[in-house]
Structure formats: structure tokens, C-alpha cells
């Protein structure tokens, strides 16, 4: 519904350019679209109200009405305001000078605390820090076993005393042990609890008091709806959390709850969990989340992911090639393989701007990963010269490639044609133009 916020704003403001003046009614129409978009993204109703009134004020200001494309201009303002509200540059947790840095994890049931504990341990291990875990969830059946298992997978020591002892005492005991063992970080897993459960909230406050954590993290499910503000307020009041770890961002929830929580508590989102594997935890990037909430894609994340799997030099070469339309099928093959290493294609495509609509269409045609296997096979059946210059591929070469890859001449034809279109679109993208989704789709 709101994948095409940009398009819808364009529609809402379409008459403006011909009249050459942006009226308050135009802006109101645009604000309605933004309001709907943010609500669809689960941003809290009150936050949305406040936000749109701010954006409206700025949109009525100078600059917008003279611009060639008021729709995009408004999107830009929305994006900037969102990013500003979301917080400044992302930061890592600071570690204590001596002794273990204690991190207390808190949150509702099912938000993903236990998994997040292991991911965080792994995150610190990457920086050469030793992080240990302590199992203070004595409520949920087998929660201790789960932490022991994921802790082992993350290579972190897990302190546990079963489920009979009081979690406050377990936490205190573990802190002593971790100190003696010279751990750099101690991450305290706690039972999921409802923010209205007085008894369990008291227990959490007691753990906090006893272990004096350097940081308390609220673990928040990215799919949370309007209630996120109630939850965040209650946890802020009782345990004064310092930041948020946002989970399940590998889904397709817009994650507007993150914005609500930041707006009502002022606490930053620090980490984002983006997959089931233990190394899929990232530092949070406010400006990217703004784009995600608005459905405007997340080019920065995509670039960063690509950088993770390739080196910088390669990335620069590639960017130059894309800009100059010298991108070859060989490059495409490399990219395809790298992209597939980043995870399921749908996730990666979802990060690209303008792909919201394309993604929907793609789901309908049910693009599957086997199709990608076929594409790989076709390219692998080409000679290096053909990969560099697909225009050389004539009828007899096509036949050979089709035979070699176990596909048909039509399939080879199609790939060569689509590649040529894609090269054009990518060049546009690299020059900073938002691609026409339709065109992009044809290019796929």
C-alpha cells in the first residue's frame, strides 16, 4: 500500500508544478499520504501526528515550491526529519576500563533476547573481546538450555545455575565469577516479561540494582505495533534502559516501532538483528531505517553488505564500470554470486530503492532461486570474450551456449537482452537518479 509513497506524493502534488505554487491544500494532501504511510509502518499514532505537523511546516517553507519536483522534495524532507528523529550517527556500546562490562537484556516474551545475547557475544568477539553470558531466565521452560546451546555456538562461556535459584542471585554470582575469570563483557539474559507484570518488573529492577549494569538494552521486535510506546515507557521507567536492540529486521516489517520508541523515550536504537545466524547483528543506522520505514529502500546497507563480501578496490572498480556502462556479464556473474551469498534474493532486492513495487510483482511471478542457477549456467557456458562483449553472441554462439548450459536459445536470448537493459538502468542508478520501477522490472 505504501511501497510507492514517493509515487503517491507525486500524484498528490502533481498539479503543483503547472500552477507553480504549493498551496496549503496541496501540502495537506501530501501529509495525508505520509500519515497513512507511517501508520502502515506501525509508527505510533501520536508520533505520526506530531511528525506530520513538523514536516508540514517545513514543506510550506521556501525551496519546496520552486523545486522541479515537489513530490520528491517532500519525500526528502520527510526522510531528513525521520533520520533526525531516529537519532544521530550510530554508536557501539562503550566498554568499561576494567572488569567486565555488564549488559542487561530486557524485553517482552518472544522479542528474541536469548538469541540476541549470543549474537552480541559474537559481536564483541569480533573485536577480540571475551564476552560471557548468564542465564537468568528461570521462567520459560528450557530457556537455560537454549542459552547454553547458542552460547556454545557463539564461543561464549555461559554461567548458569539451573532454574531453582533466584535470578537476582544468579546474576550476582555470575558477575563475581566473570570478574575472577577476567571476562571483558558479561551479558545477562532475563526472562521475557510483560511490562504490566509488576512482580517480574520488580525482579528486573532488582537485577539491575544488584549487578549495576553499564548498559541496559531493551530488545524490541521490529514487527511490534502501536503498543511499542507503552512497552518502552514501562521499561524505561522501571529499568531505565540505555538503548534498543531491534530484532527480526530480516522480515519485511517496516519497523516503525523503532521510531516510536525513540520518540517517546529518547533512547537510541543501537543494534539491529538481521538474520537467524549468530553473526547477523549489525550496528543500527538511523538514516537507513528512515528509508526503510518510508519504503524508500536502503542503498547504504546494500553497499555495505556488498563491501563485506568483496573488497573496496573491487567495489570501486565495479562502481566505475556501472557508471560507464562497461559492466560485463562476467561482472554480473560475480555480483550474482556475491548477492546470493548475502542471503535470499528477496531480502537483498528489498533493500534497493524503488524495488518495493517490483518486489510485489516478482512475488507474483514467483521468481525462484533455481532461475538464478539457470542464469549462472548460461553465463558459465560463454567464453570470456562473450561475457565481456555480449553483443558478439550471434545465432551459432547462442546455440552452443544453450547446449552447454542445458537451456534453450530463447533463454540465452532473453538473458542477453535483459542484461543490456539492466546495464542502462544501473548506470542511471549510479548517477543518482531514482529508476523508474517499471523499467527496472523489465531489466530484471
Amino acid at each position, binding site marked *: *500500500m505504501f511501497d510507492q509513497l514517493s509515487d503517491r506524493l507525486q500524484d498528490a502534488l502533481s498539479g503543483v508544478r503547472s500552477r507553480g505554487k504549493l498551496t496549503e491544500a496541496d501540502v495537506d494532501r501530501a501529509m495525508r499520504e505520509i500519515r497513512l504511510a507511517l*501508520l*502502515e*509502518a*506501525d509508527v*505510533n*499514532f*501520536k*508520533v505520526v501526528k*506530531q511528525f506530520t505537523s*513538523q514536516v508540514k511546516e517545513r514543506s510550506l517553507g521556501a525551496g519546496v515550491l520552486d523545486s522541479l519536483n515537489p513530490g520528491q522534495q517532500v519525500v526528502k524532507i520527510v526522510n531528513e526529519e525521520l533520520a*533526525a*528523529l531516529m537519532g544521530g550517527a550510530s554508536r557501539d556500546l562503550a566498554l568499561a576500563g576494567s572488569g567486565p562490562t555488564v549488559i542487561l537484556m530486557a524485553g*517482552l*516474551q*518472544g*522479542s*528474541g533476547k536469548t538469541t540476541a545475547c549470543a549474537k552480541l557475544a559474537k559481536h564483541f568477539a569480533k573485536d577480540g573481546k571475551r564476552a560471557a553470558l548468564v542465564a537468568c531466565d528461570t*521462567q*520459560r*521452560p*528450557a*530457556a537455560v*538450555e*537454549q542459552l*547454553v*546451546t*547458542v552460547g556454545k*555456538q557463539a564461543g561464549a562461556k555461559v554461567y548458569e545455575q539451573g532454574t531453582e535459584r533466584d535470578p537476582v542471585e544468579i546474576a550476582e554470582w555470575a558477575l563475581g565469577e566473570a570478574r575472577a575469570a577476567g571476562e571483558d563483557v558479561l551479558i545477562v539474559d532475563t526472562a521475557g516479561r*510483560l*511490562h*504490566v507484570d509488576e512482580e517480574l518488573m520488580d525482579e528486573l529492577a532488582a537485577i539491575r540494582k544488584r549487578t549495576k549494569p553499564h548498559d541496559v538494552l531493551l530488545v524490541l*521486535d521490529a*514487527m*511490534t*505495533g*502501536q*503498543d*511499542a*510506546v*507503552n*512497552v518502552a*515507557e514501562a521499561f524505561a521507567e522501571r529499568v531505565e534502559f540505555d538503548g534498543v536492540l531491534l530484532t*527480526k529486521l*530480516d*522480515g*519485511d*516489517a*517496516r519497523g516503525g*516501532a523503532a521510531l516510536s520508541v525513540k*520518540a*517517546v523515550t*529518547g533512547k537510541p536504537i543501537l543494534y539491529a538483528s538481521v538474520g*537467524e545466524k549468530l553473526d547477523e547483528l549489525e550496528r543500527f543506522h538511523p538514516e537507513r531505517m528512515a528509508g526503510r520505514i518510508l519504503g524508500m529502500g536502503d542503498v547504504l546497507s546494500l553497499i555495505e553488505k556488498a563491501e563485506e563480501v568483496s573488497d573496496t578496490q573491487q567495489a570501486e572498480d565495479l562502481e566505475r564500470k556501472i557508471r560507464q556502462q562497461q559492466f560485463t556479464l562476467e561482472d554480473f556473474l560475480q555480483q550474482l554470486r556475491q548477492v546470493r551469498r548475502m542471503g*535470499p534474493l*528477496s*531480502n537483498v532486492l*528489498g533493500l534497493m530503492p524503488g524495488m518495493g513495487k517490483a518486489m510485489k510483482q516478482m512475488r507474483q511471478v514467483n521468481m*525462484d*532461486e533455481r532461475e538464478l542457477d539457470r542464469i549462472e549456467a548460461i553465463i558459465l557456458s560463454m567464453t570470456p570474450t562473450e561475457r565481456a562483449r555480449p553483443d558478439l553472441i550471434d545465432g551459432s554462439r547462442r546455440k552452443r551456449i544453450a547446449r552447454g548450459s542445458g537451456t534453450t536459445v530463447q533463454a540465452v536470448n532473453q538473458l542477453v537482452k535483459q542484461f543490456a537493459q539492466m546495464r542502462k538502468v544501473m548506470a542511471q542508478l549510479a548517477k543518482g537518479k531514482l529508476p523508474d520501477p517499471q523499467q527496472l522490472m523489465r531489466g530484471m
Partner: protein
Amino acid sequence: MASSWRRLRESLSKSRRALQAELGSSLFERLDDQTWERLEEALILADVGARTTADVVRRLEGEVDAGSIEGADAVRERLVELLAEVAGPDNAEIDLSSRPAVIMVVGVNGTGKTTTIGKLAWRLRNELGLSVIVAAADTYRAAAIEQLEAWAERADAEIIRGSAGGDPGAVLFDAIAAAQSRGADVVVADTAGRLHTHANLMAELAKMRRVAAKRLEGAPHECLIVIDATTGQNGLRQAQVFAEAVDLTGVVLTKLDGTAKGGIALAIASELGLPVKLIGIGEGLEDLRPFDAREFAAALLGD
């Protein structure tokens, strides 16, 4: 800008309380644009979603304008009726007519599948006197099998388990076979939580369904998606994608004991025609209840 957000922060909790109080009593005493706006606000705050909210409010407004309902109480009553209509039939039943009846429980991570199965098994065993086998087919999450084992013991149900990391389809197959040979009444299958965006995991779920049907024609007889009441608009997408993969028969709405209203279930019922069959209201064995549409509708409005 910073100061305006601080003000918002301060006013939020107060206004929420005020809003609910207002809806509870006097909202419909005056019927004007503001009334409808406030009603919209309440439904959106309950996660009903913009589209379903607009539908419901438009219908109510239309009926009021047409003069078919009058008076605050009548309007309110009609609103609850409308919401209950959208939410679907009362006591949408779990189909237990087959022997064994096979119930598959699916959903994204952390919604409360394993807990729901424990409570469901308990209910089937203790209130209906049925013999129950639970299938520990979440072979992915660490200690999920142990968690289900603990619940099975409490519920006095037998558990069929495979090995961690094993094939979930095989576990389900074995559980149905065990039920057939022992004459058990119901098989309830746990599955690993998965985000609906992971196509390979959704395919795995579809395969489980096929495996069940291979062992017993018509199985699974129920395929329930567990939706966490705190879930926002993404819940609709979850239900859609899971329905495509495994042909859902209903929704279990969990964690209604918090402050979340679970309005997304209304959007799911309205847009996908999937009824809520059970609700979870706590962590005790008895905290799984049949769904009551009117009660749910009234609670959405803050009663």
C-alpha cells in the same frame, strides 16, 4: 524540535488514558467529525490498521447519517457489533472430527507457538479427555524440543521427537504414525518459527504439510497461525504468506494479557477471511481460551 518531542513524551501516556476513558463513556454523545476522528484514532492505536479502520468507521458513520441508529448507547452497541462481525464468527471451532485429528501450528519467531501447543494439549487432554501426541518438529531452535517436552509433561501428552537439526517432516510423519498405531485422538505439531520472508523455510513448511497428507489423507486438519497481539501491520503480511504456503484454517492470538489489543487480528479476518479460533491470555496451562468476538471488539475500544 527537541522540546516538542519532549512534550509529546509527557503527554502521551496521559492522553492515552484520557482517550480510553472518553471512548468508554461519552464518545458518542455528540456525533461530529471529531467523534469519527477519535474513533479512528482508537482503532488505529489498537493496531486495526488504516484500511480496516476506515471501512468500519465509514459503515458506522453511514448508518448514523442514514438515521438508522440513534443515541450514544445504540451507536456504541452497533460499533461493537460491526467490529465483532469483521472479527468473524464466535467459537470458530477446531476441527477434531478425524482420528487422529492433526493440528499444525505455525508462525514467525517468538509469537508463542510452543507455549500455545502446551496449553492446547492440556485443554484437549483435561477438558475433552482426548489422548494427545505432540510432535516436536521445531528441530531448528536451540532447546525448542526440551521446551516442548516440559509442556508435554505438564499437559500429560506424549511427545514424539526427532533429533536437533533433523527433518521436521519426518517428525510429523512419525507422530501421525504413532497416533494411528496407538489410537491417539489428536496430534499437535510444533514447527520452527520462521520469518515469512525466508522462501526456503516457507517451502519447508509446505513440504511438512504434504508429508502429513501422505501419511493420513486430509491431514493436517487444522493449520493455525500464531499471531502475537503486540504485532503491528506486518501481521497481515505474515498471515498472507503463511496462508499461501500451508493453507491456514485459523489464527491463535497470543499475549493478550499485556496492553496490546491485537487489532491486527481484525485486519487479518477482514482481509483474508481467517477467523481467530483461540486466544492466549497468560503463561498458565489454562490461559488459552476460545475466541469471543464481542468481548474482543469491546476490548478493542478499551473496555
